[in-house]
């Protein structure tokens, strides 16, 4: 019964997203990012495929974040504030509703990034065909697909943050504001941490403030997938141990945040 309800909500969510103009705009934007990657890479001298992969990674990440923040927040916000879904769906418990919405949103996100990965692979294939010899060593047609999987994982983390925020926030504006702020912090914290913990800075900063920043950093997911993307773009070998910790961290964060969202959503007033 619960699984059936989850399936009904997921299918409804997917149909709702596919019909929305915002999602169609994001689908069209995949082609724009691929064209932009091709156009910009032509201005460079040697590592043109690397430049393509850089801009494709940027496109994948922005599309994933845009989908989670705009489509995810709007959908959840309208359900919670206006009761939109209750007009079309049978009566069910809150767990089934939230899990169904999560499944539907994840499916639509996967669809969006799969399209982007296909276009990226075509772009890289063209790039490899026209690249200078030895200037695309280590890069293969799979590079864009692997990058797409990393982008999917990071976007799923943002989606989990959106679901968590929507489980307690009131109103679409509040949901979007907090989700955007959390996403921005998650994206910027790894590089800010790296700058703050450099030996020159740490000598000037009091110990308590470093401990405070570390505590905030632990509350947010490790969004340093950009470093992984940079290694892929250069055709370098990915460090296995670090990659393992990164993947485990992301999956753990998604599971924890969705579980917290389910607990909070059960207890909130609607």
């Amino acid at each position, binding site marked *: 019964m619960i699984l059936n309800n989850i399936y009904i909500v997921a299918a409804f969510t997917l149909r709702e997203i596919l019909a929305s103009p915002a999602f169609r705009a994001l689908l069209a934007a995949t082609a724009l990012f691929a064209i932009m990657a091709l156009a910009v890479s032509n201005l460079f001298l040697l590592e043109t495929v690397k430049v393509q992969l850089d801009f494709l*990674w940027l496109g994948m990440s922005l599309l994933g974040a845009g989908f989670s923040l705009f489509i995810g927040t709007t959908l959840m916000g309208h359900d919670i504030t206006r009761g939109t879904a209750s007009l079309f769906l049978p009566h069910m418990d809150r767990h089934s509703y939230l899990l169904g919405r999560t499944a539907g949103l994840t499916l639509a996100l996967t669809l969006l990034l799969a399209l982007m990965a296909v276009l990226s692979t075509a772009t890289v294939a063209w790039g490899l065909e026209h690249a200078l010899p030895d200037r695309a060593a280590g890069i293969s047609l799979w590079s864009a697909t692997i990058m797409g999987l990393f982008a999917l994982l990071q976007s799923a983390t943002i989606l989990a943050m959106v679901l968590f925020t929507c489980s307690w926030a009131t109103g679409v504006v509040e949901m979007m504001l907090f989700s955007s702020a959390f996403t921005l912090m998650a994206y910027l914290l790894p590089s800010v941490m790296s700058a703050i913990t450099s030996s020159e800075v740490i000598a000037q900063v009091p110990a308590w403030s470093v401990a405070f920043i570390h505590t905030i950093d632990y509350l947010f997911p490790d969004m340093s997938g950009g470093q992984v993307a940079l290694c892929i773009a250069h055709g370098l070998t990915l460090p296995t141990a670090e990659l393992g910790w990164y993947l485990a961290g992301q999956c753990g964060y998604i599971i924890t945040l969705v579980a917290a969202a389910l607990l909070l959503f059960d207890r909130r007033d609607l």
Partner: protein
Amino acid sequence: MTLLTGLCLYGSSIACKPAQQADQTTLLTGGMPPAAQKMLAGPFAGSAADLDILALFSIYDTIRQQQTNQTDLWKKLNERLLAAQTLDPWFADTYRLTIGLTAFHEQGASTAVELLSRGAKARSWDWELPFMAGYIAHDFLHDDARAYALMSEAIKRPDAPPLAVGLASKFLQSSEGTEASIHFLNYLKASMPAQYRDIIDARIKRLEKKRQSG
């Protein structure tokens, strides 16, 4: 209607202000410090480095068109190269432009050696960067001790040309003397594949002849 009026006003303000040419140049050539760029780029460090290189093309174009105040522009060009390297230390285009634009410019040789030396650490498989850094250190900075250190780093890397061996020995000879150069070549010979030893032997013979005659 309001939008059209706004667009007309904006368009006319751009068209009627030729005096803003200098501001526009500043906009195209200015940039944040490398550390700040790295912090703000977050997971998009690769694209940010690419944009720095594109900005560098714009700066170089301005240098070519503008006959005065070039020192400031060359400084900005070096800053962009430094930022691109900080963001993406493996990017070969940064180093190719360093060699092509900065290295042979009187105000840029020192920066070029610095950039290429750091690049040599990041691109540990690439012999070209320490080789070029060593050459620039010798030819422009006249620092043969540094040139030798960089050139001997280049010859340890895969596919390094035999020319690097000769240059490394030459730089050591000019900074430390003939005896040190022969000692270095003998040490190098023991660790090199057989096909490289003929060139090293010839160089040792030349130096020994020079030592005996001088």
